[in-house]
């Protein structure tokens, strides 16, 4: 709590006050509160607690007590769910109306990250496609590899990467075209690795739709799809090697090992109830947050920022990544198929217990056996879906995501104030309020 109020460069008093009011509301409500049994279930074993501590590194309150406390309070931060948006265009507009929600810190003028990065993002997908085309003489390989670079994605990863890059350059007072170009290559890398993982995921999950169109495995030979995933990776690696920075390559290679380890973790989820949440958070870090965190760190490394700044970039990315995935897992229960471009309750159907289910287990222990059998029996998916909606699982998930967003905002404020630095804070709002 203290860290949130003492973080430097608070722009205007009113925000400080408002933030404080909010925080008291959130954190100070139950002094001397002892963790209830459900919370004990989640966090009391020391190993799990440690892991949770590691994951939530950078938060100032003590984990054992306050974190479950936080998770417990079904705080009313879900008003923004009422906002309806269904397209990227709306999403962008939305970034300028966020003052309507009291939960977000107030900023004195509004910034749309997609607009201030227009120069960097405009030809982004063209550049990826060009790169992929230039690496092969086989048209079909090129077609499969470029399939998801159609410009229909949110481009969240490259957008955040470029924001952080420019915020850091401003912070270091070190802005050259050459540097920005290199950082943009890192942004390309982040999106390419993400796509490669989508392509492989499609083969693994056998899903038929993604982003509102048939997925690659529905259209092409699975062997070729697998190879196309490897191809995207190899081209991305060549591109990064050409930056000729040993440290950047090392930071980015971490992403790949994390991604695979995350996938392996997803294969076996039969841990005891106590370990399940920590397992889920670690898996989420490896599968989603590591990519953003390490890409952002790489932009700091290539700008020759010191370790502290690199750590700010990394932690910001980690928190945004975790929040993003938490919201994603929540939306899997509330969005309609048209909005998400993929079927809903998809995770349940794949046998995966995400945060909303794990939270709901506290109230409805009958979910536990279903989690253990990966929702494999007839009726499990429907029953679990219903119970999640009956419980506070969705609000609690959202609240946890919110907490990570607030932490991301705090971290962004450690950088020198600039439009990009403000953009980083706006992104946190976008992540928590997105509808697709």
């Amino acid at each position, binding site marked *: 709590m203290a860290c949130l109020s003492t973080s430097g460069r608070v722009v205007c008093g009113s925000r400080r006050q408002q933030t404080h009011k909010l925080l008291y509301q959130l954190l100070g409500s139950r002094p001397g509160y002892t963790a209830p049994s459900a919370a004990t279930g989640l966090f009391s074993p020391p190993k799990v607690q440690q892991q949770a501590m590691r994951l939530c590194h950078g938060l100032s309150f003590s984990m054992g007590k306050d974190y479950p406390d936080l998770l417990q309070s079904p705080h009313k931060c879900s008003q923004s769910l009422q906002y309806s948006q269904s397209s990227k265009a709306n999403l962008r507009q939305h970034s300028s109306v966020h003052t309507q929600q009291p939960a977000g810190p107030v900023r004195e003028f509004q910034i749309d990250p997609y607009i201030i990065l227009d120069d960097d993002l405009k030809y982004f997908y063209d550049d990826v496609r060009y790169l992929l085309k230039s690496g092969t003489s086989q048209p079909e390989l090129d077609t499969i590899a470029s399939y998801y670079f159609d410009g229909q994605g949110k481009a969240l990863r490259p957008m955040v990467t470029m924001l952080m890059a420019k915020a850091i350059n401003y912070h270091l007072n070190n802005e050259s075209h050459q540097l920005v170009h290199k950082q943009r290559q890192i942004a390309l890398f982040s999106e390419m690795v993400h796509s490669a993982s989508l392509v492989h995921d499609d083969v693994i999950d056998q899903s038929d739709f993604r982003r509102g169109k048939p997925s690659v495995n529905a259209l092409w030979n699975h062997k070729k799809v697998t190879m196309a995933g490897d191809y995207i990776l190899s081209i991305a690696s060549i591109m990064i090697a*050409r930056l000729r920075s040993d440290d950047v390559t090392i930071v980015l290679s971490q992403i790949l*090992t994390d991604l695979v380890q995350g996938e392996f973790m997803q294969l076996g989820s039969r841990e005891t109830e106590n370990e399940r949440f920590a397992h889920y958070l670690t898996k989420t870090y490896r599968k989603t947050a590591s990519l953003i965190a390490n890409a952002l760190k790489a932009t700091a490394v290539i700008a020759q920022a010191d370790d502290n700044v690199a750590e700010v970039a990394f932690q910001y990315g980690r928190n945004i990544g975790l929040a993003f995935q938490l919201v994603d897992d929540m939306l899997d229960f509330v969005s309609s198929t048209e909005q998400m471009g993929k079927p809903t309750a998809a995770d349940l159907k794949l046998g995966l217990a995400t945060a909303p289910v794990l939270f709901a287990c506290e109230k409805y222990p009958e979910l536990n056996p279903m989690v253990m059998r990966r929702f494999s029996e007839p009726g499990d998916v429907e029953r679990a879906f219903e119970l999640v909606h009956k419980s506070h699982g969705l609000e609690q998930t959202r609240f946890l995501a919110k907490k990570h967003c607030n932490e991301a905002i705090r971290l962004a404020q450690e950088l020198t104030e600039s439009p990009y630095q403000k953009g980083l804070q706006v992104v946190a709002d976008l992540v928590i309020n997105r509808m697709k």
Partner: protein
Amino acid sequence: MAMYRASGLRIMQQLRRRIPAELQPLQVAKAAPALQTFTSQRWTSTTTTSGKHASPQVTTPPPRHDWNRAVSEAERIVGYPTSFLSLRWLLSDEIANVALHLRKLVGSAHPLMKTAKHLLYNGKNTMQAWGLIVLLVSKAAGHAPSVPDVEQDKSAGVLHSQRALAEVTEMIRISHLVHNSVVNLQSSTQAGQDVDTYDDMSFGNKIGLLTGDYLLGHSSAELANLRNQEVVELISSAVRDFSESEFIGERDEQNNPLPYKPGTFQRPSLSVGVDFNEHDVMMPMPIAQVLGNPEEEWECRNILNAGSLLGKSCQASLKLAGQSEELQRHAYRFGKHLALAWQACLDAEPFQCPQLPLDVTFSLVSAPVLFHLEHDPGMYSQLEAGKQSVDNIDYDKIHKAILAGPALAKTKELQRKHTAAALAVLQHFPATDARQALENIILAMQDL
């Protein structure tokens, strides 16, 4: 495609080294027969020879036909076969996980099981670890005096970074093989028929895909730690070549390659073969230039499929050692020709006996088939049966036809050509025990 059966053997060997000597016979008896002959030979050779570089025994060529001995001599020259790849591999969490999951697939028809079997048991006709070749080339070339002492493995005469690179080479090769065993579940011919088979196949795909990705991820981490971006670039391009190789030409539903219909392309007029652009690794192999010429097409396919990784790894290894560009290019050519010679040898193998053994098939883009199509374009009509699945082809009939024609002789000629080229390139390296070992391996291979 078929150059893969090596590393499992090394796993066994390395495990054996940790077993007290008196228990050895017991262990050997339990192992597969092929393994038994191999390992006992190996043990006699290590006990009779003493000293590392000294002995004239090393420099005398081994008796002809003795592939195993050539390889075990070579392994001794570079210390451990390759580092501890296999053991580290076996002991990692993810692989332990994979092994657990693989058990569920035992008895199913998923090709991943076949790949795993090939990796674990191998007969005589295997290319021993590519990592070994990389290490031998590294040792044969030596390293620049500027390389600091701490980075050298003095007793083996290679750098630690070169050893790591040899591991990466192996991991990438295995990852490609494992990814290649993914089954196409769209197909109407295989799987998808009943729910159980479909589930098995789908699960096998998942494990295969993740295992391959795990290996790729780890190799990229290992590569990054070498702190040499030219090497990262080069090896990444070899990964690209592997994936590109699976897209060339027509394919059946399981992506098995089929030859082009004779007459599809004009025979190209160029007299020299094509290869990668030396100055830009991003440029793909210009394979379109050679289509229509069976030998060159075969060469291009197999460079992408094999020669690229071995060649580029040898080249990268010399980069790590600070060797000249020129020597690096020789290393690349050596690796490439060795891989091609080996592939020609493998391609010829099913045609060594007058009757095609039961359950043995051959690739429809192997050298004998391509050469025979040139000699007798009429055979293509028999291959058309394989458009849906190559299993529908009458292999016995084609086998007979090929044996009656000149294709086998041409394949042998092809192997000799690349063997000679590899030996010739080797002359650019100083005469050392490592170079001798490489020569022995090549000579032994010729007699397999």
